[in-house]
C-alpha cells in the first residue's frame, strides 16, 4: 500500500466514523483510535495524536452552530475549562510515561464506560430549582431558547462538576478523545443543567480541552501529518454529513448497532493490550 492509497482509505474510514459518530451522538472520536490501531495498524501514539486533532475540528465546527443558536452556556464552559485544560495537561504528560499496552487497556475500559453512559436511558433529575449561591456568585445561571420563548435554569453542584471535569480533561489528554460523555454527565447529573445545554456546552469545551494537550503532543512528535491530515478532513466531512441527516433519520437502531461496534472494538483493544499486540 503506498501513501496515496493509505491516505484515501484513512479518509474514507474517518468519514464513516465521523458520520456515524455525529448521527448517533456518540462522537466520532471514540472509534477513531481503535479504527487506526486495529484496522490500519497505526502506532497507538500517532492514532491518539490524530484523534485529538479531529476532535478539535469537529467540536469547533459544531460549536460554531450551537453557540450561535444560543444553547451553549459560555460562562459555564469558560469556568469549567479551567478544570478540563489543567486535567488535559496532566493527561498529556502522563501519556508519555504509560506504555502503549496499558494505554490500550485503559482506552478499552473508558470506551465501554462512555458507550454505557451515552446509550443508557437518562434518569430524571429531582425538581429542586432553588438558586445556588456559588453559581449565582459566578453568574452561571442561564436560559435556553424554546419555541415558546427562553426558559431559565439554575446551576448547582459547582465543586463536584469541577472535579469531574478535571478527570474528563485528563482522560482527553491521555487517550485523545473528547470525553464528551463524562462532560455531559458532570453537567447534566451533577450540576443539573438542562440536557441540551449540557451537550452543546460540552461540545464547546471539547475544542479548548483538546487544544491544551494537542500543543504538547505536537511538540513531542506524536502528530504525524500523513495520519492526521486524512483523519481530520474525513471526520470533519463525515460529521457535517451526519449533522445534515440527523433531523430526518431514525437513529434508535443505528445507535444500538454503533454501540455494538464500540463494545467489540473496546474488547479488542483490551485484549490487544493484555496479550501485547499493539
Amino acid at each position, binding site marked *: 500500500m503506498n501513501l496515496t492509497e493509505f491516505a484515501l482509505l484513512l479518509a474514507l474510514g474517518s468519514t464513516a466514523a465521523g458520520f456515524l459518530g455525529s448521527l448517533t451522538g456518540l462522537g466520532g472520536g471514540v472509534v477513531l483510535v481503535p479504527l487506526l490501531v486495529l484496522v490500519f495498524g497505526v502506532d497507538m501514539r500517532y492514532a491518539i495524536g490524530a484523534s485529538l486533532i479531529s476532535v478539535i475540528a469537529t467540536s469547533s465546527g459544531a460549536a460554531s452552530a450551537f453557540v450561535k443558536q444560543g444553547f451553549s452556556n459560555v460562562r459555564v464552559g469558560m469556568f469549567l475549562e479551567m478544570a478540563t485544560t489543567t486535567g488535559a495537561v496532566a493527561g498529556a504528560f502522563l501519556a*508519555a510515561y504509560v506504555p502503549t499496552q496499558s494505554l490500550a487497556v485503559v482506552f478499552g475500559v473508558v470506551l465501554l464506560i462512555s458507550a454505557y453512559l451515552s446509550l443508557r436511558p437518562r434518569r430524571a433529575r429531582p425538581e429542586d430549582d432553588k438558586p445556588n449561591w456559588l453559581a449565582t456568585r459566578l453568574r452561571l445561571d442561564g436560559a435556553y431558547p424554546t419555541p415558546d420563548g427562553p426558559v431559565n435554569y439554575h446551576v448547582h453542584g459547582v465543586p463536584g462538576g469541577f472535579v469531574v471535569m478535571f478527570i474528563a480533561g485528563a482522560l482527553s489528554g491521555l487517550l485523545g478523545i473528547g470525553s464528551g460523555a463524562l462532560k455531559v454527565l458532570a453537567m447534566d447529573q451533577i450540576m443539573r443543567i438542562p440536557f441540551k445545554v449540557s451537550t452543546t456546552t460540552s461540545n464547546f469545551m471539547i*475544542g479548548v480541552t483538546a*487544544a491544551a494537550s494537542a500543543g*504538547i503532543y505536537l511538540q*513531542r512528535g506524536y502528530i504525524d501529518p500523513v495520519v492526521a491530515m486524512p483523519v481530520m*478532513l474525513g471526520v470533519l466531512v463525515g460529521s457535517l454529513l451526519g449533522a445534515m441527516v440527523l433531523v430526518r433519520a431514525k437513529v434508535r437502531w443505528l445507535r444500538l448497532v454503533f454501540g455494538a461496534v464500540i463494545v467489540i472494538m473496546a474488547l479488542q483493544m483490551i485484549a490487544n493490550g493484555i496479550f501485547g499486540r499493539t
Partner: protein
Amino acid sequence: MLRQGWTDEEMDQRIGNLLRTGVLLSALVALAGGILLILHEGSSKPHDEVFSGEPSPLRSFLGVLEDAVRLDPKGVVQFGIILLVLTPVARVAFSVLAFWRARDWTYVIITLVVLLILVATMMVGHHQKI
C-alpha cells in the same frame, strides 16, 4: 457615549464566526498540503505502524512555519493542523477581550487562566524527547 461591551448574544455570534472561520481555514490549508503530499510522495511507503516521533522541524511552531513557507508538503499539512489547534486558543483570547469590554472582571481572570494554560502548553516541551 460609546456603548460598553457586547451583549451575551452578540458575543455568541462573534465566537461562532471565529470558530467557523478557523476550522474552514485550517481544513483548506491541510487539504492543500495533502494534495501536495500526494503529488510529491504519493507512491512512497507510509511507515506509521512504527512509532519514531516526528522529525524536529515538524514538532515546533517555528519549524513548521519555515517548512510551510518553503511549501514542503508535510510542513503545509502541519501548518494547517497548527491553525486548527490555535482556533480554540483564539476563541479564549477573544473571550478575555469580550469580558474585559463587559467589565466582568471575574470572567476576565477565569478566561486569562485558561489562556495562560494554553499558551504554556505551546511553549513547554521543546526540549523533551518522547
